[in-house]
């Protein structure tokens, strides 16, 4: 292992560097010059994102605890894009008096969670995985509680932290059992080691499953999500619902496809049940919501349920569709959150009924939100349609009756979801309103962020090579 091989960790290293720069900037600047920090962080992260796309060779570090593969690289890039968009959307929030003091904290904490996720994704054994997981989770609680002056924010923080502690406790308990059974926590050993599957392994699997299900917010481990999403500052919510969830999905898929490959007949039925419940519960709760953030929270729970459809397929195609869908989901959901955050930061309005007649005053934003929701609902011509269709293809590829039934249930769920995704559309376009939200001019950063996600939403769908590229690297896992 030489210095050169550190390049395999370039995402993580660059991020650490950025954190340090931000920290120094914090120390170096006077109080009245703090406003440059946010743009600085944005620029630096932009560079980081670009670097991510540079070609790299794959390999492992630390005796296999850390492995860098092309597919991991793709995952990280996807997350980078998401974070970049979020950073664009975040800029505005630091003009306010309350936040001006804590710009650098925000970015440092944010980046540290991202690093955690990166380590989690490219983990080669459960120790690394666990460390990554915790680095990703604990600071998130801090972020959720970022608005110190808000009850809801504090509540969100504590709820997230306590639930995550419990879940990681259970996860760890499972891991300890795994260790007892196999004597090793390296993925490779677990993959290739020859051993009979005992109920101990099953227990491990289930506890591990529960831990991940918590991160991905699958029913019945989802309950924290709605409250936290609602309470946290809107950008943190989008971060939670897209980046954190996405990263969890990635590692979850990888682990299931590698470590627990031989356990398929256990986790597939488990996932079968959970998928159905997640879709149903997510949709049924989303039906009733009026608060936009809470609404999106439940919708993202349902989306997670749809993601399972891809994972359950248990094939390279399945994995590819999952990653592809996450990419689509990043763009769609961030577009939606972008509009929501604009509305909130300009007017403080947060409910669907506030949107009544929104199109008459702010047509562009309404159209953007509509497209985002259509994409989430899986309606052409936006990418969501392709994403959903491919997920369904992945399920159908198993081509046995139970999976056809699962598909049917999923399809019926899309109808329910369509209903509530049309609700905001109805509010914006159809409902009459004497005093709609007045026209406001949104800042240039937010606009850029929104336009990135919108272009993404269209391009990712129609440009087939993106999917093909992802698929190419999914084989051999």
């Amino acid at each position, binding site marked *: 292992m030489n210095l050169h091989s550190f390049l395999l960790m370039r995402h993580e290293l660059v991020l650490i560097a950025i954190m340090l720069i931000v920290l120094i900037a914090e120390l170096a600047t006077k109080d009245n010059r703090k406003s440059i920090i946010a743009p600085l962080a944005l620029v630096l992260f932009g560079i980081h994102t670009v670097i991510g796309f540079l070609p790299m060779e794959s390999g492992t570090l630390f005796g296999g605890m850390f492995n860098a593969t092309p597919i991991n690289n793709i995952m990280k890039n996807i997350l980078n894009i998401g974070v970049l968009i979020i950073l664009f959307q975040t800029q505005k929030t630091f003009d306010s008096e309350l936040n001006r003091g804590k710009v650098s904290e925000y970015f440092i904490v944010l980046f540290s969670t991202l690093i955690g996720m990166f380590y989690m994704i490219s983990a080669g054994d459960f120790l690394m995985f666990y460390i990554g997981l915790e680095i990703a989770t604990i600071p998130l609680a801090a972020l959720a509680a970022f608005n110190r002056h808000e009850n809801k924010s504090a509540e969100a923080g504590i709820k997230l932290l306590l639930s995550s502690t419990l879940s990681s406790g259970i996860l760890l308990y499972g891991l300890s059992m795994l260790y007892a059974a196999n004597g090793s926590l390296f993925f490779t050993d677990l993959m290739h080691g020859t051993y009979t599957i005992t109920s101990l392994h099953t227990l491990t699997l289930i506890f591990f499953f529960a831990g991940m299900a918590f991160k991905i917010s699958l029913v019945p481990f989802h309950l924290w999500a709605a409250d936290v999403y609602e309470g946290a500052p809107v950008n943190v919510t989008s971060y939670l619902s897209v980046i954190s969830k996405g990263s969890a999905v990635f590692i979850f898929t990888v682990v299931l496809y590698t470590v627990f490959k031989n356990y398929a007949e256990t986790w597939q039925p488990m996932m079968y049940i959970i998928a159905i419940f997640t879709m149903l519960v997510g949709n049924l709760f989303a039906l009733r919501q009026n608060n936009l953030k809470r609404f999106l929270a439940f919708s993202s729970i349902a989306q997670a349920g749809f993601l399972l459809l891809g994972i359950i397929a248990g094939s390279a195609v399945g994995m590819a569709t999952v990653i592809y869908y996450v990419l689509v989901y990043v763009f769609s959901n961030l577009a939606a959150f972008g509009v929501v955050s604009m509305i909130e930061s300009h007017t403080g309005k947060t409910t669907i009924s506030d949107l009544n007649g929104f199109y008459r005053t702010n047509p562009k934003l309404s159209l953007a939100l509509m497209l985002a929701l259509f994409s989430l609902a899986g309606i052409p011509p936006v990418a969501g349609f392709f994403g959903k269709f491919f997920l369904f293809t992945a399920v*159908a590829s198993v081509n046995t009756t139970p999976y056809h039934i699962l598909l049917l249930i999923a*399809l019926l769920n899309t109808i329910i979801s369509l209903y509530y995704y049309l609700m905001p559309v109805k509010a914006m376009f159809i409902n009459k309103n004497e005093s709609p939200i007045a026209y406001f001019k949104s800042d240039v950063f937010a606009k850029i962020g929104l336009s990135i996600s919108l272009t993404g939403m269209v391009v990712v769908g129609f440009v087939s090579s993106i999917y093909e590229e992802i698929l190419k690297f999914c084989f051999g896992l």
Partner: protein
Amino acid sequence: MDILSLFVVVPILTMVGILFTKGLKGTRTVAAVGMGVQLVMAFNLLYQYFAERAKDTVSEMLFRVDYLWFESFNIHYSVGVDGIAVAMILLTSIVVFAGIFSSWKTEDLPREFFIALLLLASGVFGFFISIDLFTMFLFYELAVIPMYLLIGLWGSGNKEYSAMKLTLMLMGGSALLILGLLGLYFNSAPDGGALTFNILEIAKVSIPHDVQMFFFPFLFVGFGVLGALFPFHTWSPDGHASAPTAVSMLHAGVLMKLGGYGCFRVAMYLLPDAAQEMGWLFLILTTVSIVYGAFGAIAQKDLKYINAYSSVSHCGMVIFALLMMNKTAMDGAILQMISHGLMTALFFALIGMIYGRTHTRNIYEMGGLMRIMPFISVAYVIAGLASLGLPGLSGFVAEMTIFVGSFQHQDVFHRVCTILACSAIVVTAVYILRVVGILLFGPVRNKEFETLPDAKWYEKVSMVTLIIAIVAIGVAPLWLSDMIRESLTPIVDKLTAAAIN
């Protein structure tokens, strides 16, 4: 750019053009021009098609273009048309053209309205030219979703409810479709080889029997929902009642045809054994919906409801004839699609005009319109006569082809159903004449109506376009019927082959 893709591109270009316009005047002009071009293109396509066939080109689909899109799923952008598709495209462009003119006075958000309308249109065109199931489905959804805004935003009455109901029911249909389509896809190569979405490819292989039996209902019902198959038709009365004129025209005139078209192009063509075995079940449903719809129409007071129910009856006849699975009947079915498309579009256009003047659709509040607005009234009578199958108008050709064709069926049960279906022509006459009698004839009930104006020029354009089409088909049906008939050959052959074993 090939001749077929233009049919999708031109509407999109028109939309783009509309983006640069200001206000109603510019918008509608651009839209009218664009769709005018579309209409010309449609006729050109017809001409080209005949030219090709004259060179006795035997291939099932003409003007084939094929680009690989998603390699790993073997999804192509693959287009091509046979006689049926050409006919449907012609129908669509006529109806859309007429639709543009009958929404000439859309004051509220005109740009958005026309864009949505054109989006719908491009979806429909795309559907008809597609050979690849994936793109076909994509266009299908593209055509359905604008309905929500079109009805919800520009509609009248209980529009939010109707719009939501319509969207959800149609999307429910498409949900069933996805399952069916994927089922087809994953069984498209039972003996190894690459899976495919291409209809022509799938038609070549013989899908295992039990698979067919499993997926046929999903596909057939999925399309049937849009084709107003009893009992999945209930979106139609409310939807039509609340929709603005042009939307009702396009929806009943064109969109509902997607259902019937898909039923035979996808469900029956690709799953012939199942079609043969399960046909009887749906045959009962359609026979019911023919009679049921007709009787339902008698009891209505609202013009649009009357028409919606008559549409249920007529579209029922389409699927009914398709299920007879012989050339003549299916030929009739497609003729019926076209004829119903034209006349129901005319109906809705007229209802829109009448409503725009009298601000009521309750026939009992009107009367004696014949004297007040003769042009509209005469057009209404013509539409009515077409709908009750008067010779010389398109309806007769379609219905007679259906009846004769269906009666050719060897099975007694089918022939009995045919006789039942025939009885609808009487009931149709009853409700049509009832409306005509109450609405147009008799003394003027409401004195305020005395001063109402007759049709404006743009309304006349939309009416005359449709009437000409109706009469043209009614007087000289042979070319159309032959074009469709020869294109039906592969489908019917497959079905008959299935019937034998």
